[in-house]
């Protein structure tokens, strides 16, 4: 639902960096979106193309890598994959689990085209 404001935030960030680097346009953006980040990649890609019109990122290809959710049991220390914020430890069945990865939402890198002649 808020993927549009997220798309605009991404465009702001890449444009600022692209200007610093003397780029004319951005041809690719690499995002890392954790499966527990609360962001829906398809929705984001959809909003992105609308948000990017008229900006340096207009023709940018979005590459989205999704990272898995991993939780660590607070009782026995086991690390295991999770799809939700709540999970039962497969070893000791405790619900006391901490999410140790999967919440990331990072612009990893981008590909820029230098200003041509």
């Amino acid at each position, binding site marked *: *639902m*808020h993927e*549009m*404001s*997220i798309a*605009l*935030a*991404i465009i*702001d*960030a*890449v444009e*600022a*960096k*692209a*200007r*610093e*680097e*003397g*780029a004319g346009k951005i*041809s*690719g953006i690499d*995002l890392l979106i954790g499966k527990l980040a*609360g962001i829906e990649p398809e929705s984001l890609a959809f*909003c992105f193309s*609308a948000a990017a019109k008229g900006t340096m990122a207009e023709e940018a290809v979005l590459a989205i890598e999704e990272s898995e959710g991993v939780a660590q049991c*607070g009782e026995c220390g086991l690390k295991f994959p999770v799809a*939700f*914020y*709540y999970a039962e430890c497969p070893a000791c069945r405790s*619900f*006391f689990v901490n*999410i140790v990865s999967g919440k*990331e*939402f*990072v*612009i*990893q*890198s*981008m*590909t*820029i*085209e*230098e*200003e*041509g*002649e």
Partner: protein
Amino acid sequence: MCDTCGCSPDGGAVLRKPGQNNNHVHVSDTIFAHNHEEHHTHGHNHDHHKGTSRQVVLEQDVLQKNNLLAERNRGYFEARNIFALNFLSSPGSGKTSLLEKIIPSLQPLFPVAVIEGDQQTTNDADRIHALGVPVIQINTGSGCHLDALMVNRAVKELDLQDNSLLCIENVGNLVCPALFDLGEALKVVIISVTEGEDKPLKYPTMFHEANLCILNKIDLLPYVEFDAGKCREYAMRVNRELEWFEVSAKTGEGLAAWQEWLEKRLAHH
């Protein structure tokens, strides 16, 4: 285009004071937008070759802009010893009613101010205004959540005092507001017995981010099939550290316990 749903032609939130439907202040992005002209005076010598492309590493958190501003808000609150609470819930769980009920008991003890968030109207701010505390309304238009910029702007319109309580009532929404740090000290999620007891499992992000959960409308328990014990259990599954209170904003039941907790936290936050 509106920056959340893309549907309204007039994007951007506005701030309103109670009863002032004509006068409003725009929460504009201009204070934080970098001046694009500045970047062109770098004097960098880029060779004008055609079509060279290269990869630039950013490793930048997307919500960085909001998070940085939220930290500035947080710093401001800490410096002035303002205890800021972010109230979150579905529409209709009783956020405003709860504030209406508890603020009169808190007012004699310390200054209280409120920031209200809704898509439209100053209805909630008007209700709080009637209690005699400073309040400002943020109308998000078609926006679905408050963000740090809106709060930053709203705080500048309010005359906050040192050693006070600031209640930020977020837009009624159990999804998006969980992702947007406002700079608050604590997130308070409110659900009511007229909702499903499995709410915490269906909206885990919100319950995971919250520090405190208030179950409201307990006066209606005899009339609904709601298992408060199960609801609490589900909530604890998602967030083991969640503090839990059961209240009725209507009858006042359970509010004294919550108030006592609030007073303690305010004294030691």
